[in-house]
């Protein structure tokens, strides 16, 4: 593994107080009735989750990650920039990753402004990602899923123009017309904050990241797919004249550390189960609104959907996805092996898993901060010294 090891802590901020009859609902996304949201409990959860993000900074994580979803108990971050704004004054070192608002769900100039504000407020610690948005977001927002990919590309084009060219400029596109593209403020970092595409490895998103030279933040990809994805991205990016660095390929890993392997599994598995069986539970129709996927991709995913959304078997999940549950030693070994295999030194840690209680999150982050992160940094540093000699 080369370069600095990087650890991010990603939070989904789930609403965990589900009704007893929640299993009666085929989906906890899109049409799961919002009468089940209790704002008083929601307030307590926000207090707790914000504290966990701040704690991750204190124990030595390099970055904290937030993202956006709508109409779901899965996430209370309909507007992740608000969460970023709330934690910026309280986070001293870590980067703030808003990975992110789907540009299709906001006016591009406004998103360029919002992110520039966060970048200036954080003194240049912002990183952003441009997700297409899950299929579910297109049922919740008035945007056409059949033209989502074209709109997505145009939105990113506008945002990059707003950040890299002195305004005012004009933009006459298929979806948006700007007579005066001239956002204030401008980003703190030059030319702009580090950017990623977010996705599950569809050919279209990989190609887009390659073309733009962006990083690729993969979500819920299988081990096999992660490898192919990173290889394809490096190859395609090279064709576009970009060199993809390992740190541009964050690997999402569900991670839990405890004293022993048994204890770690005992403490974590029920929450991993909740995460896959409940939090992610939705329907094929919500996952793939009409026109959102190519027909070929739809057929490919039809098989995977059962595995990811709704049915749970820890061994299957463990085998298919990146899940590191064990002692600090075991987790270090696991992460190093996976990092080497897919070619990254950047780990995006899902350390607040599903409906995990606060004490487990704190315990997990503490172990990670004390035993995993420093050890991996030290080992990477000694490898670099060896390589330099």
């Amino acid at each position, binding site marked *: 593994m080369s370069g600095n090891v990087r650890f991010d802590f990603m939070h989904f901020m789930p609403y965990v107080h589900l009704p007893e009859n929640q299993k009666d609902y085929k989906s906890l996304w899109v049409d799961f009735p919002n009468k089940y949201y209790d704002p008083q409990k929601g307030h307590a959860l926000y207090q707790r989750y914000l504290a966990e993000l701040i704690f991750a900074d204190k124990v030595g994580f390099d970055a904290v990650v937030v993202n956006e979803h709508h109409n779901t108990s899965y996430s209370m971050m309909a507007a992740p920039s608000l969460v970023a704004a709330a934690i910026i004054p309280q986070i001293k070192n870590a980067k703030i990753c808003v990975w992110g608002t789907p540009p299709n769900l906001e006016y591009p100039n406004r998103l360029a402004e919002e992110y520039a504000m966060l970048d200036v407020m954080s003194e240049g610690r912002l990183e952003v990602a441009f997700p297409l948005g899950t299929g579910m977001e297109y*049922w919740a927002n*008035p945007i*056409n*899923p*059949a*033209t989502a990919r074209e709109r997505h590309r145009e939105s990113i084009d506008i945002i990059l123009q707003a950040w890299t060219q002195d305004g005012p400029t004009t933009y006459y596109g298929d979806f948006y017309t700007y007579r005066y593209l001239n956002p204030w403020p401008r980003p703190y970092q030059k030319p702009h904050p580090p950017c990623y595409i977010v996705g599950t490895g569809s050919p279209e998103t990989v190609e887009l990241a390659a073309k733009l030279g962006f990083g690729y933040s993969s979500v819920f990809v299988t081990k096999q797919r992660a490898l192919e994805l990173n290889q394809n991205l490096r190859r395609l990016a090279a064709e576009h004249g970009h060199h993809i660095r390992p740190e541009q390929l964050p690997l999402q890993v569900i991670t839990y550390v405890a004293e022993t392997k048994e204890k770690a599994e005992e403490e974590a598995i029920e929450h991993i189960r909740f995460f896959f069986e409940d939090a992610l539970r939705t*329907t*094929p*129709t919500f996952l*793939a*609104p*009409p*026109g*959102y*996927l190519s*027909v*070929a991709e*739809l*057929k490919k995913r*039809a098989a995977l959907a059962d595995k990811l959304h709704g049915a749970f078997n820890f061994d299957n999940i463990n085998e298919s996805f990146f899940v590191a549950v064990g002692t600090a030693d075991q987790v270090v070994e696991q992460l190093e092996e996976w990092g080497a295999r897919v070619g990254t030194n950047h780990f995006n840690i899902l350390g607040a898993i599903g409906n995990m209680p606060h004490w487990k999150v704190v315990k997990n982050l503490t172990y990670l901060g004390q035993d995993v992160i420093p050890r991996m940094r030290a080992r990477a540093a000694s490898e670099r010294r060896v390589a330099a000699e």
Partner: protein
Amino acid sequence: MARPDPLAGFERQTHTINGVKTAVLTAGRGEPLVFFHGAGTWHGFNFARPWAEKYRVIIPFHPGFGESGDDPGLSDMHDYVMHYLDLFDALGVDKLRLVGFSLGGWLAAKFAMEHGRRVERLVLVGPAGLRGKTRPTGDVLSLPPEQIPALLVSNFDVIKPYLPEGPDLDFMGDRYREGGTLARLLWEHPYDKKLSRYLHRLTMPTLLVWGEDDRLIPAAQAEIWRSFIPKADIQIFKGAGHLVLDEKREAVDAVQRFLS
């Protein structure tokens, strides 16, 4: 058991119209009778064969549906009207009798209001296109695809032979493709809020055909259409749903009588 060929009895032709492969089914000889299909082509066109006894029946697949190719550049109903101007030129069709079902009914109405002199007689079968505030059109885009077929008929046995018996990836993919084409056209508004403003331009004799038990587009919308169209008759068939032509031979015959 193999599913029946939903295109049996028709000759197939292929034309390239503005770069998009356009498949056309034809049968019979005589004056041209063009049928515009709805948003799902899986149940085929067997119902249309009696019309071929008197007419040159022409059933084009709309781009993005059935055997025609995809053209993402066609993004609204008017683009399809323009597509058909080109196709009719290629087919040598000038004046025509036009029958449109569901989405195809909306398209037929739009074609006829813009090119009324070419359309001698117009039949709209359970046409989509109106919002129908008090008798709203069902939003087919928001329905899980597996629930749609049963919703379309009064008697499920009529369409059962055209459906796969179990999970079928190809069938699923075909429906997803047609749904995607529909989304490109209609996701923002599954109706045309300006349609009623121009329906008075349908000055040709017009027949509105509906299945009484239509659960997608209520038969009560027939009266809304008639209130805007100068010369429109209504025929409603009992014991039929949205797919009234598939379910009721009487409806097919009524169309034939009206066109003659």
